[in-house]
């Protein structure tokens, strides 16, 4: 996934002095001797969006932000069967667990451990779940407020698939683009948000 060339050129024209001295990348390179090549690729090497957001401290200037939105919108993939509204109960389970994908020696997960969406970590959802985070906006009553017309469903699906396509350098992971959640799981999360039966939309 490459950004338009002219943006990349900007990256390469760093002043020589900055490259000579010890940089963060040099330090990262020598601080993870135990990481495998695959772990480097998937977990330490940065893609363009990660590199830009890091450099701009998650406050990208307008031109960079516009390019991030443009490049990330192009990554969104919808489920083959076209069903964007899945099972809200499965979505609720997904929102409630933050397991899966840990590596390392101290407390790794078994590779097949279910990857959770952990939505409650950052968002208020069902009113009755008081232990909800506030890193992200509250989503209680999300479906009640918006209804679930096709464009609302599609828009909600897209935001979960790749939040950077809407909020450049947001803290929210790109759940679909990274492959952390499958399109079907994202459809279940959409249902948890939009289905009238879901506790998100019931008092």
């Amino acid at each position, binding site marked *: 996934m490459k950004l338009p060339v002219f943006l990349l050129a900007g990256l390469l024209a760093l002043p020589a002095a900055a490259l000579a001295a010890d940089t963060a990348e040099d330090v990262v390179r020598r601080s993870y001797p135990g990481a495998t090549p695959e772990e480097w690729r998937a977990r330490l090497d940065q893609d363009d969006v990660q590199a830009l957001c890091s450099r701009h401290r998650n406050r990208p200037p307008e031109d960079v932000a516009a390019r991030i939105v443009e490049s990330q919108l192009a990554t969104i993939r919808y489920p083959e069967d076209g069903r964007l509204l899945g099972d809200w109960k499965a979505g609720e389970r997904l929102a409630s*667990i*933050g*397991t899966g994908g840990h590596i390392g020696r101290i407390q790794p997960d078994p590779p097949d451990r279910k990857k959770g969406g952990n939505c409650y970590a950052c968002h208020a959802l069902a009113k009755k779940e008081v*232990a909800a985070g506030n890193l992200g906006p509250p989503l209680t009553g999300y479906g009640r407020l918006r209804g679930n017309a096709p464009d609302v469903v599609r828009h909600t699906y897209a935001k979960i698939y790749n939040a950077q396509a809407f909020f450049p350098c947001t803290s929210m992971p790109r759940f679909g683009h990274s492959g952390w959640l499958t399109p079907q799981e994202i459809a279940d999360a959409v249902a948890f948000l939009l289905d009238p039966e879901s506790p998100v939309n019931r008092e």
Partner: protein
Amino acid sequence: MDRRTFLQQGGGWLGTLLAAGWFAPEVAAQPWNRAAFDARTVKEALEALGAKDAAPGGDIVITAPELAENGAVVPITITSKVPGTESIALLVDKNPNALSAVFTLPAGTLPDVHTRVKMAETSSVVAMVRAGGRVVFAMKEVKVTLGGCGG
């Protein structure tokens, strides 16, 4: 460890002697009440403590957090204002084994003990007081949230 088995077989007259503190402090401890600590529910534990007819009420204050950020360490203080308090027991209703501790208070020791218990989940904490042949208890709910970032 023969010293430990000696203690455990000390039931019967030896148990009462031990309880009466006839020996040096280290040996005076009653044999560990396996039946009470193995009991699952509060009811079973009270029966094993010989407190089947424990009645609710009695002037007992349970000081505990309303919400414990983690069930591994929940600070509990039990203060009994029942005259002649001889022993205080601490139970957690929803724990796998309800009985957590039994404190025996000789004359001169204030009926006001503090310790920390593990709680498997939100549950009521039960304080049982034995005083002059009567057994009374009080309860208080402590909420437990398993905080953290979702792992």
